[in-house]
């Protein structure tokens, strides 16, 4: 069944492609050592998009406020580094429960009502978080951002250097670990039940899937992923600003995911790569107005059809996806 969707490539070829993808990602440390800072950004954005993919691509939950958890993770890690310990792994570990609790509690809000209400509530949540961060200036630094974060060496050995070597490696390894975990997750019975819910919640309920509980679980997991991405962002850039909670973050990550295609895990990573390179190129051309071209891209993407664009050039890569996917890429209303 997997072969039917893999565009005719066999399992071995797929495995080879996958290994090549990650080998390239790690090889970039030596191949393009001057670009590690932007690669670090790509890895983090990829992780963020991956977390949205779990939510949107697999469970069909549309969110326009996913930056809430990114920001929460970033602020947690930043504050942890400032006040408790500068150890990066401890900071990462601190962000996880915070994001998990926020994801769990907010899931009760998010899962109420229809698509439309959900859109609103997610935007509202991110805005409330942004407003809290803005107003609690004594803790978060308000509009000035959280400054003066100094990170200790990773595992007590590798210090964060100016060129982003440690930062990139740290982000990439975290991404790889979480990616593999996500792949296990979506291929598990739990992941299958999510897809059943996405395709038809009523039918899923009828065959005995505990719909609400499953959705709460995936929402919490996605929040944790986003929180970790935020923590990585705070630790590797050593700065947190209100921008991490801004609405355009949530919109951008949606775009990233859509560029790469939803529902096959690699979509977020490919999208992050394309998006960041595109942003870099466009910002070089028209520094102030690059959002115009992003907007145009979005409009074209929708008018031409998301499927057609992502299916063409990525058909080969799609074979990399672990499971049989992509039957119903767009989450249905309701």
């Amino acid at each position, binding site marked *: 069944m997997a072969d039917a969707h893999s565009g005719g490539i066999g399992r071995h070829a797929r495995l080879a492609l996958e290994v090549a993808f990650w080998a390239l990602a790690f090889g970039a440390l030596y191949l393009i050592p001057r670009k590690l800072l932007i690669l670090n950004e790509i890895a983090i954005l990829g992780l963020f998009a991956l977390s949205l993919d779990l939510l*949107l691509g697999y469970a069909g939950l*549309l969110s*326009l406020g996913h930056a809430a958890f990114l920001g929460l993770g970033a602020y947690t890690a930043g504050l942890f580094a400032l006040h408790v310990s500068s150890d990066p792994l401890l900071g990462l570990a601190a962000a996880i429960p915070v994001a998990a609790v926020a994801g769990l509690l907010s899931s009760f*809000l998010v899962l*109420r*009502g*229809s*698509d*439309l*209400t959900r*859109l*609103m*509530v997610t*935007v*509202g*949540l991110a*805005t*409330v978080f942004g*407003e*809290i961060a*803005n*107003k609690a200036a004594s803790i978060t630094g308000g509009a000035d951002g959280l400054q003066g974060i100094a990170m200790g060496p990773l595992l007590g050995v590798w210090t964060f250097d100016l060129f982003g070597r440690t930062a990139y490696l740290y982000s990439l390894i975290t991404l790889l670990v979480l990616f593999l975990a996500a792949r296990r997750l979506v291929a598990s019975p739990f992941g299958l039940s999510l897809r059943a819910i996405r395709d038809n919640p009523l039918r899923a309920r009828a065959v005995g899937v505990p719909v609400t509980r499953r959705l709460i679980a995936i929402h919490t997991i996605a929040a944790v992923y986003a929180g970790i991405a935020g923590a990585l962002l705070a630790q590797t850039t050593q700065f947190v600003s209100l921008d991490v909670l801004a*609405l*355009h973050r949530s*919109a951008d990550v*949606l*775009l990233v995911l*859509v560029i790469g295609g939803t529902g096959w895990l690699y979509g977020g990573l490919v999208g992050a790569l394309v998006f960041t390179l595109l942003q870099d190129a466009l910002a070089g051309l028209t520094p*102030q*107005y*690059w*959002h*115009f071209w*992003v*907007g*145009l*891209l*979005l*409009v074209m*993407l*929708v*008018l031409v059809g*998301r499927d057609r664009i992502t299916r063409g050039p990525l058909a080969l890569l799609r074979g990399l996806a672990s499971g049989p996917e992509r039957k119903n890429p*767009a*989450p*249905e*209303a309701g």
Partner: protein
Amino acid sequence: MLTIVIDGIAYGMVLFILAVGLSVTLGLMNFVNLAHGAFAMAGGYATVVLTSRAGVPFFAALPLAFLATALAGIVLERTLYRRLYDRPHLDQVLFSIGLVYMAMASIDWLMGSQQQFVVLPEALSGRIELLGVAVGRYRLFIIAVCGVVVLALQSILSGSRFGSQLRASVDDARVARGLGIRVNRVFALTFAVGSGLAGLGGALGAEILGLDPSFPLKFMIYFLIVVTVGGTSSVAGPFLAALLLGIADVAGKYYVPQFGAFIIYVLMIVVLLIRPQGLFARGR
């Protein structure tokens, strides 16, 4: 106290005019149009350009802003929006966010990123004494204009032939088409009026909401609140929601400035938690 109430009412009225078009496209036609604020911004900028550069008097600029954005609305509806009516919500969200980005960057490019001001005519500036409190004349003007619009909308939607055609088209497009109603035209016209009203709202509200290229994103959430909290079954629902939002926001910013915009979001979340279908929605 009364000043705050009147300011809040004026604010809420503007929000209503801005959002009422959205309550039709989003609520009735079930199309998630996040670019609604872009039309409002267009109306605001049209007024600024007309009054300050072309020398058109303010009172003439308002209907022109309405017409200009209505025209833009109908063109976009015929060329782009129409194709997306039956697409999934994700597509509509992406598409309209794309439009917002484009509109923001274009305005930034054309007019610069600084805040724009509408020069009010002499007759509307200053304050007058009303029931012992000083009230801005412009606020009263807004309340009067918006009041007229609300009454007109209500009577058109519930009383006129067009209103019944619209309701029929929304209820069941296929049957309406079978009865000889030109559904596409009804939708296009509705969309145009909705965009035009957004433009009018943007023109009226430029003074109290502020106008700069980030307008569509900044106020998108406000429009959405009005629509979702107000429900979509009548004009009255969004109207009351807009008033409530306006007064709560103004009062909140006045009495507890440290919480700022916070109150309305919490209020919205609480309302949606208790009544996911909106505060004033009838059960379907």
